[in-house]
C-alpha cells in the first residue's frame, strides 16, 4: 500500500507537487497521468526516497519513507525511465548483486534469477557486459532486477517509453499480473491508451496538483457529464493552460473536488 499524506514539494519557489493526498491500496494498478512537468517524476522520487517532501508524509507498506527509508526501499521495486546498470557487469552479475542487496539467500537468488531470465528471455545476452545492451535490453534486465525480491510495491516511471510493441505488450501483461497477485503498482505515463488499457485507477496531475482521480469508468462518466466525447478530451481539458481553459469556459468545472 502507498499513502501520500498531504505531500508537497517545491523547487525553490516553484511548487512541483502540491498537497498530494492519495492512497493506493494493495493489488491496485494506479496510473499517474499528466503532461510534461506536471509533477509525476517528482512524486515518484519522493515515493522512492530520493526527494524528501517539503511537507507531508509518504508511507509504503506502513514504512515512513523519510525516517524508515531502508525498510521502505526493501519492499519497493523501482524502474526509472532510464534504468541504471553497471556497464562493466554482465546482466547476470547485476541480478546477483541486486539479489544480494535485498538479502536473498544464494539458493533462492539463483532460482529467482533463473526464473527472471526465462520470463524476460534474457539468456542470449545475460552473460554479456551491460555496456553492450540496447535500451530495450536494459529495461528488461532492470525489470527483472526489480522483480527479484517479489516486491510488495512496484514503481515505474514511464515504463513503456522507447520499447518495441512486443516488449510493451509483455510489460502491460506483467503489470496486470502483478496487480492481480496483490502487488501495488504505481506507474507514471504520458500515454492515455496505456492507462485506459491496464489501470484500475487513474490520477490526472497537472502543474503539481492532482486534478482528477477515479476508475476509467468513473472518468468516462465524468467526461460525458462535462460534454466531452472521450477521455482524451477530458485530459486535454483538465491539463489546458489557464488561457486555454478560459477560452473553453463552459466546461471548466472544478475538478479538484474529485481528487479528494
Amino acid at each position: 500500500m502507498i499513502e501520500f499524506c498531504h505531500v508537497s514539494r517545491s523547487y525553490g519557489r516553484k511548487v512541483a507537487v502540491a498537497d498530494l493526498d492519495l492512497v493506493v491500496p494493495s493489488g491496485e494498478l494506479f496510473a499517474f497521468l499528466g503532461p510534461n512537468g506536471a509533477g509525476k517524476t517528482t512524486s515518484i522520487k519522493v515515493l522512492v526516497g530520493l526527494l524528501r517532501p517539503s511537507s507531508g508524509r509518504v508511507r509504503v507498506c506502513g514504512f515512513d519513507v523519510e525516517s524508515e527509508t531502508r525498510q521502505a526501499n526493501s519492499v519497493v521495486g523501482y524502474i526509472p525511465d532510464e534504468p541504471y546498470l553497471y556497464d562493466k557487469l554482465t546482466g547476470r552479475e547485476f541480478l546477483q548483486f541486486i539479489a544480494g542487496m535485498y538479502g536473498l539467500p544464494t539458493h533462492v537468488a539463483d532460482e529467482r534469477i533463473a526464473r527472471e531470465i526465462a520470463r524476460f528471455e534474457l539468456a542470449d545476452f545475460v552473460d554479456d557486459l551491460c555496456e553492450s545492451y540496447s535500451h530495450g535490453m536494459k529495461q528488461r534486465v532492470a525489470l527483472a532486477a526489480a522483480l527479484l525480491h517479489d516486491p510488495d510495491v512496484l514503481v515505474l516511471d514511464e515504463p513503456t517509453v522507447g520499447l518495441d510493441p512486443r516488449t510493451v505488450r509483455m510489460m502491460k501483461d506483467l503489470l496486470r499480473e502483478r496487480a492481480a497477485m496483490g502487488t501495488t503498482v504505481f506507474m507514471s505515463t504520458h500515454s492515455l491508451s496505456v492507462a485506459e488499457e491496464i489501470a484500475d485507477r487513474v490520477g490526472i496531475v497537472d502543474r503539481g496538483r492532482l486534478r482528477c482521480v477515479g476508475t476509467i469508468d468513473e472518468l468516462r462518466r465524468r467526461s460525458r457529464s462535462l460534454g466531452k466525447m472521450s477521455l482524451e478530451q477530458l485530459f486535454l481539458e483538465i491539463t489546458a493552460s489557464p488561457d486555454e481553459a478560459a477560452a473553453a469556459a463552459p466546461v471548466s468545472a472544478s475538478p479538484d473536488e474529485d481528487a479528494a
Partner: protein
Amino acid sequence: MNDASVNPSRASREPLDRSFPARARVLAAPEETALFWRLRRRLMTNSFRESIARSRLRVALATALTLVLWVGLFVLFLLGFEFLDDAIPEPVTHDETVRAMYSIFFASLTVMLVISNAIIVYSNLYRSDEATFLLTTPARAERVFLHKFQQGMLFSSWGFLLLGSPMLVAYGIVVEAPWFYYGVLLPYLAAFAYIPGSLGAILCMLVVRCIPTNRVHVLTVAGVLAALVGGWLMWSLASRQTSELLTPGWFLEMLARLRASESRMLPSWWLSSGLLEAARSGWRDPSARTAMVESVLFLAVTTSNALVLHQLAVWTAGVTYRSGYSALLGAHVARRRLKMSWMDRAASTVMRPLSARLRLLIVKDLRLFRRDPVQWSQFLIFFGLLGLYFLNTRRLSYDVNYASWVNMISFLNLAVVGLLLSTFTTRFIFPMISLEGRRFWILGRLPVKRDTILWSKFLFAAAGSLVPCALLVLLSDLMLGVSPLVVWVHLLACALLCSGLSGIAVGLGAKLPNLREDSPARIAAGFGGTLNLVLSALYIVSLVVMTTVPCHFYLLATQGGNEALLLNASRQWNWLMLGLLGGCLLGIAATAVPMVVGFRAFRELET
C-alpha cells in the same frame, strides 16, 4: 538478440512464483560491506579483462608512459637528493632541510587533496547515476558514501602516488635507508592521503547540506579568498627577502618563512618526520632502534587520525547524505533568458573574413565556454596565479647579476605557459569532439562539411589561447627586462605553441573520441587524454629547446662577458636562425599532422 524477442505469452503463462519463503530484508552492515566489496572486485576484474582482451596496445602504452614518467621523476629526485647530500654533508642540517622540504611538499599536497577530493566527492555522490540508483535500494547511506568515496580516493590519489613515490624511493636510496623504510612507505602514504580525502568529503557534504542553493556563490568567494591568500603568501615570500637571491642565506630565509608548514599539528609533518625516522632506523645501535620506534609512533598517529576522520566522514554521510541529496536535487535552477552578448558580437566582427558557417560554429563554442563556469574559472585561476608569479619575477632582474640567469628564467616561464596551456587543451579542447557524441546528429545533419567543424574547433582553441598566453609571456619578459630579440623569439614560440597544442588536441580528439562518456574530466583522464598530454609535453620541450637555446647562446656571445670569448657571434646567429626555422617547421608539423589524421578519422566517424 532482438529486443522484440520477449515472449509475452510465456510471461503470462507462467504465474509468478511466490512460494519461496525468502523475503527481502535489509542487510546488516558487515553483509553490506562484503556485498559492495564483491561488486567492486567484479567491476575491476571485468574492466581489467576487457582492457587486456580489447585494447592491449592502449594498456601497454599507458603502462609504458606511466613507467617513463615515474622513472623520469625518480632520476630527477635522485640527482636532486645526491646534490643535497653533497651540498649539505652535515647530518643534522641535512635532515632539517629535507624535513622542511618534505613538510612544504606534503602540506601543499594536503591542500590540493582536500580541494580535489571535495570536488570528486561532489560529483560522485550528488551527480552520478550510480549514486542515484543506490539511493533507491535498501543500502545504507553510509555504505553508498563509502563506496563512492573510496572510488574517488583511488581516482584522486594515483597522481599523489605517482609524484610522491619516486621522490621517497630516491631519498631512501641516497641515504641508504633500511628495508623498514620501504616497508612503511605505502601505509604512510595511504594513511596520509585518507586525511585530506576525508576532510574534503566532510566539507563537501556539509556545504551541500547547509547551503544547497548558494553553494556556487559561497565556493566562488572561498576560491577567490584562497587565491588572494595564496597570492599574498607568494608576494610576501618574494618581496621581503634580505639575502641575495639563490645564496645559502636566501635558501635558509625561505625555509624559515615557510616554517608554518612544519606545524606539529599538520599531518604533513607527521609524515615527513615519520619517514625521516624510518630512513635512519635499524637494529644495530640504540639511536637507530629509537628512530624505528618513533617512525612507528608517527605512523600510528597518522593512521589513527585517518581512522577518526574516516569515522567522522561516515557519520556525516549518515546524517546529511540523503537529506543533502534531496536538497540539492530540489534546489531551484532559475531559467535564464540569454541573448547574444557583446562578446559574441565582437567575436563575429573579428571573424568576419571567415565563412558564415565557420563563424557560427566558433561562436557556438565560445558561448558554451562562457556559460560553463568550470571552464573559465579554472582558466582564470591558473592563468591569474601564473600572472601573479610573473609580476613577482621583477625582483629577479634586480637581484641576479647574470643576464644568462634572467634569460634562462624567461625561457622557463615560456615553457611553464606552454605546459599550463597543454593541461587546458587536454582538459577542455581534447574532449570537445567526444562531447558532441550524443548531439552529433545535429552537426552531422547540418549542411556543413565535417572538416569545417574541426577547423572551427581548432580556430577557437588556437585563437582563444593565443591572446592570454602571449600577454603572459609579454608580462614575464617585461618584468624580467629581457632584450627585444628575446621578446620576439618568445612571441613566435608562443604562437607556435598555441597552434601546435590546439592542433594536437583537436586532431587527437577526433581520432580517439570517446562518444559514450559525458564527463570531459573522464574523457581527458582516458587513454586519448593521456596521450594528448604526453605528446603536448614532448612538443613543448622540443619547441622551447629549439627556439630558445640558440637564442640564449647568441645573447651570451653578444653581451661581452667571459662567454663571448668562447662563442662566435655570427655562428650563433646562424644557429639561432636554424633553430627558429626548425621550430617553425616543428610547429607546422605539430599542427598539420594531427589535424590531417583528425580530418580523416572525423570524416569516417559513425555515431
